[in-house]
């Protein structure tokens, strides 16, 4: 999965460890957004024609274009349902969280 990973961030414990002013390393993820979801998308690869429209439209970019099964990074999928709604082959269905 070529998606950015959550990292354990070392918080500055003294003035000396503070960055120079309010700036921080880019691309640092410290917590998932998964908690936002009430449902999540499930791919049916049989129906999927790999047109990748879901990959293009996803507001979170959680679909892994390179993986065969178009894996979804459930750390950051917010379950908005957009991919399911737009999939021309209706290959994606939204499933209630925890089912």
């Amino acid at each position: 999965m070529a998606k950015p990973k959550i990292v354990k961030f070392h918080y500055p414990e003294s003035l000396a460890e503070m960055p120079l002013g309010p700036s921080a390393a880019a691309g640092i993820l410290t917590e998932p957004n998964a908690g936002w979801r009430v449902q999540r998308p499930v791919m049916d690869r049989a129906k999927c024609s790999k047109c990748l429209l879901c990959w293009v439209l996803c507001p979170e970019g959680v679909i892994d274009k390179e993986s065969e099964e178009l894996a979804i990074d459930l750390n950051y999928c917010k379950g908005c349902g957009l991919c399911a709604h737009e999939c021309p082959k209706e290959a994606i269905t939204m499933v209630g969280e925890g089912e």
Partner: protein
Amino acid sequence: MVKVKELTDQEYLYGHKACPGCGLGTIGRLALKILGPRTIVALPASCMSTVTTQYPQMNYSVPSLTMAFAGTGAVLTGMSAGLKAQGITDVHVLGLAGDGGTADIGLQALSGAVERGDDFIYICYDNEAYMNTGVQRSSLTPIGAHTTNSPAGTASFGEKKPKKNLFEIMIAHRIPYAATASSAYPYDFMNKVEKAKGIAGPKFIHIMCPCPTGWGFASDLTVEIRKLAVETGMWYLAEYENGKVKMNLVPKKMKPVEEYLRPQRRFRHLTAENIKLIEEHRDREWRLIREKWLVKL
């Protein structure tokens, strides 16, 4: 022309805190896939900056700057001048600002930057109100939309003024390249970013960015709403270059505006008579478009 297979799976904007289904995530992701890692993003105070930089979580993996609300255009100027002065090339200076930050408080800075011909790309993701502060109207809020400071009421049908036309304001500056876009048509948008990438000087893209929370629709309808906007003529896809305007998509038959308005809570209060007024306004706008830009029709 952009082919999805060739696009990198690398995400330069990832893990942001925008509302589920919000268009700005798609817009930010796709723009940076085209422009690549040597891009500096300037974000004025807005949804985009608030949802992407909560210390220490930084969702842009390219250098980014959260900018004061009114100064996006000017900071882009400073960046491109600073790079030029140091002989640093092949860097894209990108401004990503909302409708208010662009058409209201930031218009003067943008106008100055464009008039100077500074080198940058400015993408205005237009969610048609000040969403970050809780849906207050901006000059790009459409007629009839309910917002918290242009509310529907017994004596009001919501926003009274038509949307300010930023695309034509940029044309009036004789900007090297301007375009309107919608992420319901992602390839059209990416091709426009690709084209802008190759043009020197200021480039401006005004892209529709529906807001599930502020407009009041389910988070999975974002793309459908954008499509309806174009199919009902409430938004259009066009490009301006070398003094000429090219319409990228002209609906053969305009759908009634009602189809676009009905699924959105912000228009739910509108009476049939209000809707007729909005439809008349749309038709007048398209007559103007035909006269100005589609002479042969």
